[in-house]
């Protein structure tokens, strides 16, 4: 019988999850080691907690089974380069699932990454931040502002200095 942990969201909803799912969060793992099985998470709303649990459930299932020969070869290949790019998820099926998972609007993504950061779920944090970065890549400054509802608060002089300093980046190809 798998041990169950109870998570309570900010708006009071309770979620029972298997221990190995909950332990994707390092924070929860530490707390359960000390004492309680009931963990209040006042800063995490139900909607976000559901999504986080879904991610953890999927990744716990994958982590608990030994890697198939093809995915373990991929894992070995990616770890041979000691340049620290973010570790890619080696299983292509899981990667596909992850890509579907992050097809959300910016606001939802931010909610998830903040919760995942709070709960210390490193892979989820990385996944979402990578997605956010992808939404910034290749865009001009004005497009980035529009995407993320940012306003230009530079003085004309500051803006001029910035463009001059990295003029190579602002020339159109």
């Amino acid at each position: 019988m798998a041990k169950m942990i109870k998570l309570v969201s900010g708006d009071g909803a309770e979620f029972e999850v298997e221990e190995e799912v909950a332990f994707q969060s390092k924070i929860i793992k530490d707390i359960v080691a000390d004492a309680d099985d009931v963990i209040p998470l006042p800063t995490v709303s139900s909607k976000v907690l559901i999504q986080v649990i879904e991610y953890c459930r999927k990744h716990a299932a994958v982590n608990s089974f030994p890697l198939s020969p093809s995915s373990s070869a991929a894992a070995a290949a990616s770890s041979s380069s000691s340049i620290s790019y973010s570790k890619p998820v080696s299983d292509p099926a899981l990667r596909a699932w992850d890509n579907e998972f992050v097809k959300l609007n910016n606001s939802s993504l931010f909610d998830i990454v903040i919760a995942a950061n709070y709960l210390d779920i490193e892979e989820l944090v990385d996944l979402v931040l990578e997605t956010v970065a992808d939404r910034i890549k290749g865009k001009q400054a004005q497009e980035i502002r529009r995407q993320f509802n940012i306003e230009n608060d530079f003085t004309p002089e500051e803006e001029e200095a910035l463009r001059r300093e990295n003029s190579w980046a602002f020339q159109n190809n």
Partner: protein
Amino acid sequence: MFTNERAIGRPVVLTFAVVDRDQFRPVSTRATGRSSPAGATEAWASESSSTISRIPNLDAGPYSVFRAAVMEPLVPKRRLCPSAVYPTASASPPTARPVVVATDHILEKLLALPDPFVSLEVSLERLLDSRLLEMEKDQLVDGAMEAGSALLEAARRSARRRASMHNCSSWPLASDLTIKVFSKLDTQSLCHAAATCSMFNKCATDPMCYENIDLTAEVPKVNNTVVSKMIQHAGKNLQSLKLGIRSNPASTTEFRPLSYSTIHPMEASGLSWSQKRPRQGRETSLLTRSCLLALSVDGSAAGTLLRRLHLYNIDKMDTSALCTALSACQFLLDVEVVGL
């Protein structure tokens, strides 16, 4: 009571005006501050207790604590820039009434004018007529210009302050997460992100963002100064550096005819770098032989962790400069030099 040991910050009582996000109207004048993403501000507006509460993530970046417009006009003019920390915010006595300056009334009346362009010009002309001396008239006109500029500058400064505040509240990530996002960007996108607003600009100066510097381009654009600045930004974090001119490896699949000199025949098929067919480096490159000097300064601080160095078609690079650079980087694993 569940406490997250990891996120404990110093307990602080902040006095500030909580501002309605949509209208920027003050809705209350005292609340305990809490650093949290934007969505939580409404929750805190109703709290009026002045008990000390923990502010997690205070060290994650001051701009994640919600800053609002100060109400007293006597507070010294400072940009409500996300990077400023206001430890004395609680020191200002809550009961001190601001000195109501006559200017406030004047300004209010001025801003209430229904048709300022017309009415101001008419009034100015009338005042000029009433002055008899030429010198007085000159002074009047000069004064009008000065007042006009002053108001324009003040309004622009306010607009920028409000823009900064808006950014603070609408960008939900604390600076450590923002920096992590930026560290995943290619160098050019990083520059664009830095140019969007002061908050992003500040995050973009963090060394983590410069771990992998890729300044390659299809045409020469980058000069030595840019390279050294970026290497400096990276400090000890620099892991990968790519410079020079090459055709975008992702853009074209068709084979490009070789057009560079035959001194360096690139026929070796077994090597991966032979597949990157760089363009003829006949264009004057703005990178010279000293472009890698920054790696060697400061006891090779920047070169320390460098693992990957790719140089493409840097005309003016010569072997001795290259050797100096290489000797600064003790731990290189991946070196690619094309068109030397």
